[in-house]
């Protein structure tokens, strides 16, 4: 086994989800950011009404985004925002993984690579001149989601994640429960909110194949779903692509739209649908 595979390997056996105990009543929780816009960490803080209660029931040992002094070890739970885009990101991530029992990917960048990973779909000459490497000496790696390098135990998807989902995750772990992942499409919540279907008005809404849990927030505001929470486990992508093509969208358009947020986590069989489009210049 090479050194590298050792670092990347998942811990053996089932994941042990820590629970508060009499001797250790407060879970030790950290929040970290890799390369990203910090919007997901802000989503944690947007729970303004609950944040004081939150720091009462869990021990937030590290949150460098808002705190100067941090204890960067022995995490029961660690939330990681952003994706790996530099050597420094990778080293931080690997170090943190070793010090964490349950690692939670917070937000779309950590989950799928999201917008920053879009670079993978274009030629180097298109972005090379924009890299910080020259000015700052940052060692650049191809942007990729967190689970390309370390094992993820839970994902809170979304760009940004729903602040209430972060809250209910913490409520669950404090109560000793394992949080549930929402695996229903956006349409479920959207129709429940009595929204008129945007597909009916010809918009390229990705709601039917996108994991919900966001309460269809975009469609509630009249804006079609771009799939920021990634595909559901049950997504019927061929039918979705066919539907959008019937509505007049090209395969290239559909591919680009679907890649925007779910890009690097698009299943191989889905990329095959787009192969015809890929071959075009």
């Amino acid at each position, binding site marked *: 086994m090479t050194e590298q595979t050792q670092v990347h390997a998942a811990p053996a056996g089932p994941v042990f989800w820590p629970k508060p105990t009499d001797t250790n009543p407060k879970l030790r929780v950290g929040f970290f950011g890799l390369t990203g816009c910090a919007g997901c960490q802000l989503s944690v803080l947007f729970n303004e009404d609950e944040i004081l209660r939150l720091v009462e029931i869990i021990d937030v040992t590290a949150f460098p985004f808002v705190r100067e002094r941090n204890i960067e070890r022995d995490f029961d739970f660690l939330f990681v925002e952003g994706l790996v885009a530099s050597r420094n990101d990778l080293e931080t991530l690997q170090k943190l993984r070793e010090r964490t029992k349950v690692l939670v990917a917070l937000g779309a960048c950590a989950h799928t690579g999201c917008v920053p990973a879009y670079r993978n779909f274009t030629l180097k000459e298109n972005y090379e001149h924009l890299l910080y490497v020259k000015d700052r000496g940052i060692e650049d790696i191809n942007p990729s989601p967190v689970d390309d390098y370390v094992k993820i135990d839970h994902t809170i998807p979304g760009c940004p994640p729903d602040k209430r989902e972060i809250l209910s995750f913490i409520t669950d772990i404090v109560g000793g429960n394992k949080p549930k992942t929402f695996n229903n499409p956006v349409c479920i919540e959207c129709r429940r909110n009595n929204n008129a279907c945007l597909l009916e008005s010809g918009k390229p809404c990705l709601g039917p194949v996108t994991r919900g849990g966001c309460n269809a927030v975009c469609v509630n505001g009249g804006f079609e779903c771009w799939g920021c929470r990634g595909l559901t486990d049950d997504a019927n992508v061929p*039918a979705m692509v066919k539907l959008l093509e019937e509505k007049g969208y090209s395969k290239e358009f559909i591919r680009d739209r679907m890649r925007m947020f779910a890009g690097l986590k698009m299943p191989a069989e889905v990329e095959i649908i787009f192969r015809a489009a890929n071959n075009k210049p």
Partner: protein
Amino acid sequence: MTAAYSMNRANLNPFLSAIAGDFELIAPVRTDIVRFEAVSDPAKICLDEQPFFPLKEFFFRKHEVILKFDGKRFTAPLKKAPKRVFFGVRRCDLNGVLHQDMVFSSGVADPYYAAQREDSLLIGFHCNEAPSEHCFCGSLDLKDFHDLMFFDRGEAYLVQVGSGKGAAFLKKFKKFFTASDYAVTDEDRFIEGVDKLKVKDISGVYDNPGWKPMVDACLSCGACTTLCPTCYCFELREVPSLQDESSERVREWSSCQLKEFTKVSGGFVYRESREDRFKHRIFHQLDYFKEKNGVNLCVGCGRCITGCPTRIDFVTGINEMKA
């Protein structure tokens, strides 16, 4: 109750205004689409189209806290709906209410449903022609189920009384009506071209290969079940409080089209394949429910087709299977 009345066309809006003065009036209104909403100005009511969403959300709530736990004791927060009058409800939707009554009010009655349903009065509006291209109510054995039913007869409305509650209500507003000795016949109830589903017993087509194109087009998005006036499946969740020991038990609409729907403890999913889920809905609507209750659950409103993103027309699909 077969008593019939007639109402001069010019009397309709004053009648509805009078209702809105005394009750909460809910009727189809055109906003971005046509939907049932509380309305005070009858001029806003739209009777030309089938409302996109059915009536069921007013009785079977989408999201409801059914139990509260304060750390020591449970309480059931029963909130009674105000007195509501529903106007402009089509025969299919009325039967949808009837079928949901069968589910929630027979045997051990569901108190949450009852609290919403009790003080409601249903005024139907009969279709002269099918309001949607996918209507197939004529293929189903629908019943007269209304407190009052309006038939549009040009100059005047023919009004059929369907219950004691309806008769009492009509008496209260009698100045708008004229008594008539006319009896409503099957001819009045006839709507042309809605006998679309030709197969009356679908039990034999479960394994037919004709399902495949429909299943392939299915996105499993749950639009069909959400828009269905009769689908009544729900899920229960515990929502613990962050602040203290308290907790709430929430009931929310669910859908048999979702993989999560049949997931049980340990992660096993009973209806894993899209095909099983798709067929389950159709067979529950047109076969299983009838076996148990003597009547099809489906009322033929066609919303599961009009509201389906990929327009899966299972009515045509089933017809073609037998042919």
